């Protein structure tokens, strides 16, 4: 059993004593180094809550989350800030770029927070800009580029630190199909070439078919798991669709 990332009996309840909603109900799983894991499920199944807890944005009600030997559920607020900075990368549906900074500066900002030397920052940002093919727009402001380019910039910012885990919440949600495909190929590329470990929440079967393993969540519990193995993406996509048809399909994402 790998101990790269372990989620142990994690629970998250909302509401008061008389009216409790179990958003996540005793969920346990592991993520291996270099895995590309997808989390799918209908609205209100607890996908985003689970991701937020892994992302240290939300606290668990019970259970533990270990990144190797570190239990993030025990960390103080300041320690969590440092942990996020050094170990996690985020890609959200809304890009979350700072619109007063250029594309390149958005990426550089993440590195400067780690107080790395200038040469290293310049080299790392140059490399990731090239890898994600956004070199030619490096000096543009977010409002001057397309949604797909913005999302690749967000990806670059998330990956430039070489985080232990890249968390993506509906990253293709606001993109057209071509941009979505490019982004997913970028994820696959990052996963293969940089050995990035990725956890992606999505309700879109096509996006999910790029993952190596998929966890299906319903009512806060994992009810199914699919592993791609050596299967082609097309076959894997069909398997996903089959699982979804069992649960009545997934309509829209929950927030």
């Amino acid at each position, binding site marked *: 059993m790998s101990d790269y990332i372990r989620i142990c009996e994690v629970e998250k309840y909302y509401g008061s004593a008389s009216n409790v909603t179990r958003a996540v109900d005793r969920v346990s799983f592991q993520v291996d180094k270099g895995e590309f894991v997808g989390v799918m499920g209908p609205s209100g199944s607890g996908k985003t809550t689970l991701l*937020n807890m892994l*992302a240290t*944005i*939300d606290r668990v009600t019970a259970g533990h989350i270990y990144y190797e030997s570190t239990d993030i559920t025990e960390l103080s*607020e*300041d320690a969590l*800030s*440092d*942990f*996020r*900075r*050094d170990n*996690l990368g*985020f890609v*959200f549906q*809304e*890009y*979350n*770029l*700072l*619109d*007063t*900074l250029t594309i390149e*500066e958005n990426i*550089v*900002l*993440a590195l*400067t*927070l780690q*107080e*790395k*030397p*200038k040469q290293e*920052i310049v080299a790392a940002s140059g490399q990731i800009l090239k890898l994600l093919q956004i070199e030619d727009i490096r000096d543009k402001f*977010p*409002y001057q580029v397309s*949604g797909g380019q*913005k999302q690749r910039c967000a990806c670059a*910012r998330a990956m430039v630190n070489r985080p232990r885990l890249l968390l993506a919440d509906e990253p293709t949600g*606001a993109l057209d199909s071509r941009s979505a495909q490019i982004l997913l190929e970028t994820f696959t590329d990052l996963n293969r070439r940089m050995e990035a470990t990725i956890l992606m929440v999505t309700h879109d079967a096509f996006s999910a078919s790029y993952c190596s393993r998929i966890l299906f969540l319903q009512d806060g519990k994992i009810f199914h798991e699919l592993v791609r193995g050596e299967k082609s993406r097309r076959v894997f996509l069909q398997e996903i669709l089959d699982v979804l048809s069992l649960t009545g399909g997934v309509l829209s994402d929950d*927030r």
Partner: protein
Amino acid sequence: MTDKIMKKLSFRNMKRSTKDYLVYMLTMTLVVALLYAFGSLIFRNGLEQYFSMKLQGLMGVMIGLATFFIMLIVSWLINYMVKFMLERRSAEFGIYLLLGMKKRTIAGLYIRENFLLGGVSFLIGTAAGILLQQVLMAVMFSMVQMEYRLSIAPDGRTMLMAAVCFGGCYLLALFRCKRKFKRMNIQALMNAKRRNEEIREKYEYGKQFLFPLSVFFIFLFWKMFGRLSSTQQVMYFLIGLVVTIYLFYLGLSAFIICYVRKGGAAVYKGQNLFLLRQFASKMRTMQFTMGTLTSLFTLALLGASFALMFSDYENSVLDGKFPFDVQIYSKNTDDDFAEEKRVIEENAAVSSFYSYHIYTDEENTVNTWMLTHLQAWGAMFRNGDGTPDEAAIERVLRDESGDGTYYTYDTYMGLTDYNHLRELLGYEKVGLGRSQYLMQIKPRLEREVRKIGEELRIKDASGRGFLSCAGILAEPFSQDGHNGADYVVVVPDEVLGRMRPYYAELVADLDGQAPFGLQEKLEALLPAGESEEALYAEGHVAGDICCGSDTIINVVELNLVRDNQLPEVKYMLATMIIPLFYIGLVFVCVAVTVLAVQQVSDAAKYQYRYEVLSRLGLSRAAMERLIFKQLAAWYLCPALLAVVISGRMILFASDRFIMMTGVPTSVGGFFGKSVALFLGIYLVYFVVTYVEFRRNAFVTAQTGSLHLLQRP
């Protein structure tokens, strides 16, 4: 590197804030400029040296007081804006937290940005303030009819005061927002922009009655305000008014919501549904702020109107108050004024002296008529049936209260003296028959005493017959105690035979201007117990001299040197006028800024709504009209309420002011002028908001809607 990019980040953020909150920046700059310009009057008041001891520091105290109230409101504005910008940028702060920035660092970044913003306002504002201060000094010097030479130089103490006041407000606001940062939570921040505006609608049916109720209270206020007779009643009414101002908006928004729900006819016309809903929801979220803005507008209108009243007095009445170059009173009827004449001659070129007596017959027929007929006294000296209240009249004439309104006995002047004085003033001489008398009265009272001739019975020289009234003259004649109080009865010289001299007067006609300080030198001649300061200390405002029915502004001096006295009174009035304008100006600007910023920064939210409307087929022109209507309603609402409320108080006060001081303005004049002044400032802000809002709302067409959703 970290530091460099953080600096870049805060600088760019500040630049963006400047663009988004242009109106706020402009107001802050203006406030600093005003703070500097008016504040300089505390430390570097070039005028003060010319005036007597009792005026020293007066301007400083008044400006200091005004500054205190202004700083209260400005610190409210800064606090409001710092909080407001913080909320607008929650998603951005969420990203910082996600990237692993610590809360301290983010708070530091935000504080740095705000200090940059404040710093820029401060620098530009101070520069503008130095210029404005020169304008202000020039205005003040011209107010007191002196020449001012420009001297543009920054004053260290003023700058320090402006910095301490302004910086203090910022520090307070930022200290409070630091606590807010501590309580922040990433998830709430990240989700903030995704949430729809929360529209809480509860108990609307009940709340809507607050609207007619507050309208009724305001109606009652209009009806009753002039009739309130005790301080207690006024207090109750004012408390009621403040409550009404705050509840009005709650009621109005509920009223509109209920109207829309009921499906009233107007809902189905044009874009009314959109407008009404938009207006009601904005009113609901802003109700408390709207109440505060209405109060600020009301205070600003009141301040401006009072300033206009005093300034009108200064321009139209005051000059007539001192017609003679020098005039001296002496209660000693044998006084030959030798000492005074010597001092005047030593200090100025005298063209002529003239000394004379005011006489009395030791009766008070005229005084009684005045006390029972003039508006200023109302029913104070009348019994219920309209007959004179002898006891009250006796009390006031015996001067037991020490307020020196009228002399104990009626005042008379001989025709020869009268004509001599008229000649000195350049008036035409008058003639009188043996059995006639003339009434010389203050210009203000001319209309009120028309019937005095028919009702007064003044005995002739023999004491058996009566004189008839040959007319009433109302040119300025120094009647604040010198040539009688309010009036002097002019009789043929032989009638004086049955009277006794009451007090002595000396007038001097000078060649050219009187030198500074002449009045003080004359005052120094008074015996120790009769000096002005001694009389003030005893609680006798006027001592032996009586000033008549003037209230509000009284100038009572035993020794009057016009060229000394006039600038001094004008300066004293300026110490009222300037702070009142200062307060009014800042209050209006602060209030309009909040209105403007609320709308402009909401434009991003409206972009989405307008885009939806556009997709539904609304033309660009129709949308522009819609924006205009929306902004106009938003701007007009608090202004109208303030105009209605302050209107009653201002009209009442103007009526009294005109009656008591005799300024020649119509009752609505001051109110009209201050509303016009106020609308001028309002219009500037409205245009800026409209232009900004349109620009923001239609940006969609160029950049696409995704950009809108992405902006934090």
